[in-house]
């Protein structure tokens, strides 16, 4: 299982999903209309490292985080 966490203002509980890559995750999350805008503007981290492509293989126990637009300070 892969755990998916939605950070900051995305009001959604974490998910546990059976997937082996980020393309599969994209397909699952795109089904959720409430996430449409967040998927367009959020960065994605795998095990706390931001990735720039969906070509990432996933294994059991991996953690994915969605990071919406930021504004520190």
């Amino acid at each position: 299982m892969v755990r998916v966490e939605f950070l900051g203002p995305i009001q959604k509980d974490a998910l546990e999903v059976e997937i082996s890559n980020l393309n599969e995750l994209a397909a699952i999350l795109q089904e959720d209309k409430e996430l449409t805008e967040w998927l367009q503007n959020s960065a994605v981290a795998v095990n706390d490292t931001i990735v720039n492509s969906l070509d990432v293989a996933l294994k059991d126990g991996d953690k994915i985080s969605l990071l919406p637009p930021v504004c520190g300070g």
Partner: protein
Amino acid sequence: MLSLYDGALDVPKILKEWYEEEAQSNYGAYIPFVGTVRSEDGIDGLSFDIYEPILESWFDTWQQKAKEKGAIIKMAHSRGDVLLHESSYISAVFSPKRRVALEFIDEFVEDFKASAPIWKYDLKDGQRIYAKDRSTAIKGSGILGAKQ
């Protein structure tokens, strides 16, 4: 050094601590930046969420860049609520000569605004409202939204 605090920062205390920590380190320049919550648009204050694992790795990368210039950076940020005229953010660069610190603090704070995983909310009429219009998408955002 990265320090996170619940609520507003005690600015004089933090600046003094940082000064004293490096007083004997032979740095010629200490350039702090202090961010203070201003009264605007009827807000009562700001509130912050932080994702610490990525904030720490982001900060470590900048500390390494500073080290390559013979400098160090320190940063403090608030979690939770910070009211008007209180401070939520301090960063500082110490370097042997002023030019490095002046340029580095500018570069560092700009990337902080664009990349550090911190989310800001306006406190207004008892509500906590995400400051969406003032927020910046992190580089590389949107990959999960692209049509397959």
